[in-house]
């Protein structure tokens, strides 16, 4: 026991240094891709040989990439809208209403988050082929909406949960109908949450691989296209350049989403 105490108290003093090292460990992989993307060599390894932007330049020649990008954008935009709409409806119900099976609904809609994705993928594949609708971008959209609903529900329940009911009651007292109060008071106040939910679900869908891999048929999304390229060493520098751009886009989206989420918290905070 005394030895445990001695070791733990030593660890305690090193904690800040460890936390910084750990953050470095978290960022190492996503900083490495941009580093190699500017390296003037087909071999992805050290030592670095020189600076070039040619891997980015030659991305423009790959038409299959742009088709995949278009597919990914369609899927991510539609999934984000569908998941955010469905997520907003149920979040409003969960936070402001008491109804039968409320807890069961709440647990059920969070389920996609804890199910192994491969199980969701094969189950959907079996059903979609079984009922004869095949695999297309539409089936990827159905799957991605399912996967992103839990993210939208967590963001929107928090947005509605912090919303001060007195605002809506005041609007009704002042002569608004309950629909008018929802549209002109509640929705504007929770709108930063809605935007944050749209951006987060867009990002999740845009990066998702397994479901798209099983369900996209002949119209690959960007991650499925990247997967098909990873096997060819000659294509790797291009993949790395593309990957660096995608990481940059994801981080930009995330930063904007975070801004809106914070604004939503500030907007909806109840008076002390």
């Amino acid at each position, binding site marked *: 026991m005394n030895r*445990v*105490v001695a070791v*733990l*108290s030593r660890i*305690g003093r090193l*904690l800040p240094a*460890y*936390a910084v090292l*750990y953050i470095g460990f*978290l*960022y*190492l*992989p*996503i900083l*490495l*891709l941009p580093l*190699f993307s500017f390296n003037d060599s087909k071999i992805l*390894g*050290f030592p670095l040989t020189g600076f070039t932007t040619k891997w980015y330049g030659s991305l423009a020649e790959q038409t299959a990439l742009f088709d995949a990008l278009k597919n990914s954008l369609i899927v991510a935009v539609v999934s984000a809208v569908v998941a955010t709409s*469905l997520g907003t*409806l*149920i979040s409003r*119900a*969960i936070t402001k*209403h*008491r*109804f*039968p099976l409320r807890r069961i*609904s709440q647990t*059920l*809609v969070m389920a*996609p988050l*804890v*199910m*192994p*994705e*491969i199980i969701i993928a*094969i*189950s*959907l594949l*079996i*059903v979609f082929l*079984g009922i004869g609708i095949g695999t297309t971008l539409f089936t990827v959209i159905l799957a991605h*909406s*399912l996967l992103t*609903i839990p993210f939208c*529900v967590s963001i929107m329940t928090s947005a509605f949960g912090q919303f001060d009911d007195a605002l809506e009651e005041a609007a009704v007292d002042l002569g608004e109908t309950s629909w008018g109060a929802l549209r002109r008071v509640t929705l504007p106040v929770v709108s930063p949450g809605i935007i944050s939910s749209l951006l*987060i679900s867009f990002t*999740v869908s845009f*990066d998702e*691989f*397994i479901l798209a891999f099983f369900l996209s048929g002949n119209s690959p999304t960007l991650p499925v296209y*990247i997967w098909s390229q990873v096997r060819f060493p000659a294509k790797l520098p291009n*993949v790395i350049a593309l990957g660096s751009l*995608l*990481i940059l886009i*994801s*981080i930009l989206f*995330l930063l904007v989403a*975070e801004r809106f989420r914070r604004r939503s918290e500030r907007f909806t905070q109840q008076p002390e």
Partner: protein
Amino acid sequence: MTLDKNARLGLLLATPTTLYVLLLIAAPVGMTIAYSFWTQEFVDVTRDFTWANYREVFADPLYRTLIFRSVRIAAMVTLLTVLLAYPVAYHIAFNVKKNKAMWLFLVTIPFWTSYLLRVFSWKLILAQNGVVNSALLWLGVIDTPIDTLLYNSEAVVVTLAHAWAPFAILPIFVSLEKIDRSYLEAAKDLGEGPVRSFLRVTLPLSIPGIIGASMIIFIPTVGDYVTPALVGGSDGAMVANMIQVQFGKANNWPLGAALALSAVVCVTGAACLLVLGLKLIERSLK
């Protein structure tokens, strides 16, 4: 049953989403269960009830090995991720006074970038001329590059421990943040040193966070496909890779479905044992 207006409206608002998730989860999983009891005959599936697929899954050493290896790797990933993440969550909860939100945001950013690309990047880190070998050579620790860093189950464990980091930090942070600070002061007043009060107050009270983190990491990891496929090699292959083969090249969907469901049953059993173990630790510490 009569419902008031509030309840009717709530039900109306909740129904579309609940139905959507129910239709896309319950119905497909039901179909998968049915498939696992059918038989593949060339291009057709014979719909006669049989246990043959499950018998094959548990009799064939290849499938058995893959399932047990997947559970073992997931358990190791869970343990490593929680061990590595706990001190960071502790640091943010107790040492960071301002900017806690900024720290948490910093921890979650990498998670939002493409999982596929992050795993691929680990291939570059562990390669023969990768980051680890180059650093060790440069430091003079080794003379020749280590060529066994990639393509084994350890590479899979490290890569996944990285991928799941925020899922461990966030729940543990939440449980640490909730601890009433007066308990710690009381322990101090009663003459407990910082380490003893950690072991007897902080750690037991953070077990719910550890359980939450473990579940959210353990269950999906058993079904991971990308990491074993990219950095696992043949020694690090997991059950999801074989499920994909059955639904692809081998074209034996009933067997693939039986494999997937067997993995789910094993993972559920293992998860229950894990929670039980953690609860026992919690009780013995209190």
